[in-house]
């Protein structure tokens, strides 16, 4: 028969200062774990949410990111009218040639970061179906006008409608602000493709073509065609695959966070062991009494494990609650692969809460195991005799 849970709850309350301190340690570990994971989830989401399921990214062969890609206009012309690319009602293909360049922009505090200045044509707004101008208007072709991503507003100077933004070599008039479903596009400035080419002064070339496939098009066949056609000779992959390979920044952060959280957890486990050992030795007589009443050694061990688990789980809840305010907090970080700065928001997801709770429970179980076993092995007579 099991020892009633009420016994454990009351025992925790009797030693409330000690319980609170042990729980506090575990809660702080859970807090760190949750904050790091919220950051990683935010980074992942900012990068991955840039893609649309039926979109393809076409880069120069061997290029790993848009930043390092580049090819001739003739190669673009050769692929533009492939049959598997979707068309507008007027027959224009959903093929958006783009040139994202890294340009220095001044933050509000005057320091300068590399951000992406992306040259696009009007068709780009159709291919990137998550991008919408939410204030002002779209830039006009042929003019030095730009639209800026929502994430840059209030972080960088002159990112408001009507201002003149100095980015790259030129001076651009800001005419609109766009959103892109929280993706890293919101950390970019978009302008006319030809104007951006002129600004970067490296000649007329494109870095990437974003393509929307026609409904039912054969994506693997398209990828083969892009690679094998000698006129094109580029590499295509789905936006989902492209962004899946762009997670270096998040991966590094995740690795660092996991290492820190696990080592901290070991420290917290030592602390929990200390508390539980003290709990066992202070209650030697009680344990003897329980055994004398007929509770089995297994029930005693289980009871102490449950006590440790209750403490750790409560601490886990506190840790998660303390971490909740970071949800939605936005920050900037340089992408390790492209060097460009991106704005992202910390995200706390249901899955993360579940993982944090599991983590807390694991700390409780591991910390409680040895002391609980000691409690189980006590001899009834000796423990009743102790004082």
């Amino acid at each position, binding site marked *: 028969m099991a020892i009633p849970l009420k016994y454990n709850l009351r025992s925790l309350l009797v030693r409330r200062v*000690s319980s609170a301190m*042990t729980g506090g340690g575990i809660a702080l570990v859970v807090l760190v774990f949750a904050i790091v994971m919220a*950051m990683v989830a935010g980074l992942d989401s900012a990068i991955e949410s840039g893609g649309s399921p039926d979109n393809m990214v076409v880069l120069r062969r061997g290029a790993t990111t848009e930043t390092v890609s580049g090819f001739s206009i003739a190669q673009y012309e050769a692929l533009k009218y492939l049959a598997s690319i979707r068309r507008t009602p007027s027959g224009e293909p959903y093929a958006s040639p783009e040139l994202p360049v890294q340009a220095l922009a001044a933050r509000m505090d005057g320091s300068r970061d*590399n951000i992406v*200045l992306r040259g696009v044509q009007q068709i780009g707004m159709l291919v990137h179906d998550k991008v919408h101008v939410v204030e002002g208007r779209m830039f006009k072709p042929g003019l030095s006008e730009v639209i800026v991503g929502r994430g840059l507003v209030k972080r960088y100077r002159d990112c408001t409608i009507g201002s003149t933004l100095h980015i790259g*070599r030129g001076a651009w008039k800001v005419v609109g602000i766009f959103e892109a479903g929280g993706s890293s596009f919101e950390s970019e400035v978009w302008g006319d493709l030809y104007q951006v080419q002129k600004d970067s002064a490296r000649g007329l070339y494109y870095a990437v073509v974003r393509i929307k496939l026609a409904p039912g098009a054969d994506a693997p066949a398209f990828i083969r065609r892009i690679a094998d056609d000698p006129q094109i000779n580029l590499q295509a992959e789905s936006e989902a695959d492209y962004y899946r390979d762009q997670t270096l920044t998040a991966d590094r952060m995740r690795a660092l966070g996991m290492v820190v959280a696990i080592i901290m957890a070991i*420290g917290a486990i030592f602390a929990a062991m*200390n508390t539980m050992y003290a709990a066992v030795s202070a209650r030697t007589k009680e344990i003897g009494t329980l055994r004398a009443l007929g509770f089995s050694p297994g029930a005693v061990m289980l009871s102490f494990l449950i006590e440790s688990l209750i403490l750790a789980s409560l601490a886990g809840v506190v840790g998660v609650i303390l971490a909740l305010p970071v949800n939605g907090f936005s920050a900037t970080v*340089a992408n390790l692969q492209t060097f460009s700065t991106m704005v992202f928001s910390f995200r706390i997801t249901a899955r993360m809460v579940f993982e944090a709770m599991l983590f807390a429970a694991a700390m409780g179980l591991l910390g409680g195991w040895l002391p609980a076993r000691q409690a189980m092995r006590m001899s009834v007579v000796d423990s009743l005799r102790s004082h």
Partner: protein
Amino acid sequence: MKYAMLVLKNLTRSKRRTILTVLSIAVSLFIFSALVSMPAVANRFLADSASTTRVACHNKAGVTYALPEAYKQRIAVTPHVAAVSAQSWFGGVYHEISDQFPNMAVDPEMVGEMWPDWDISPQALHDFQRIRTGALVGTETMKKFGFRIGQQIMLRGTIYPFNVTLNIVGTLGGKAPPSFLLFRRDYLEEAAGRPGFVDVIWVKVDNSAQVPQVIASLDEGFANSSAETLTEPEAAFYGGFLAGYRLFFQIAELMGIVVVFTIGLVAANTAAMSIRERRSEIAVLRSIGFPARVILSMLLAESLTIALAGGLLGAGAAYLVLKLVTMEGVIGAIQMPASVLFEALVAAALIGLLSAIVPASAAARRNIVDALRAVA
């Protein structure tokens, strides 16, 4: 001396508790030291490895904007310029994309004058100037891929649509970033069809007092041209790349502080437990004539010993681990600065004192009669 013995006896009374506490403090201070080292190491790297007379001249507009190669000749004739070397970022990968390390092409003629602090052997310099496919490789990259001098390697182009085949002629040591690989720009230019653009033009100034003047004359000289320049001392140039990662450093520091709080809780809890159990014993000591002050000092000494032992263990382990494990990227090997060791020990001492002071002073001042009477 007799007090020291008593403190020691008390420490060994519950060996398991002492060991667990020392370990939990050690683990936490290990993390603290490692985290706090990160920004400190980055800053120190910038301060140490950068030369005060080397400046980087690059396009004011941003990293993907280039400078015309012809600027090099104009810079070379500027007063107080001792050496000039143009650099193009190649960004090649050895086998896998995850193997990325910084590799760039530089002009071979003045490598010795430009980077005298990089410990390039005279033989290597000679070979680098003689062999068109020569490469100089930092020690960490040599070790990571098991390269040896004389080996031929191929780097796959990511920015450029071709691969380069290089012969390693020597190593970069001294203050060189240990992950760098340099090869010859004339080789790159030829393969690329002579586009005539470079990313950075490194300038060696003949003495550090002239640096501001040279910077001003270069940037003014190229003002209102098609490619305006931004010239910065080497430390500021690399610092600009690191600035984007300030969030990582902020998070690391925040975690370091949380860790210290956590240890504080753990230590305070243990101290309170161990002192609570000894209340009547302390009362006995008081009643046979030990002053409260002495008892308080003994209890504090006990807690301090535990915390400092944990601190030494943790910070020492962090020092060793950081020395063994090296971080990839521009920074190269991380080594813990002495200041971090000091900070960790101060943190440990504070934890030791603060965690014990409340329960210890309460126990030392407690009314003797009450304490003796209380059932433990």
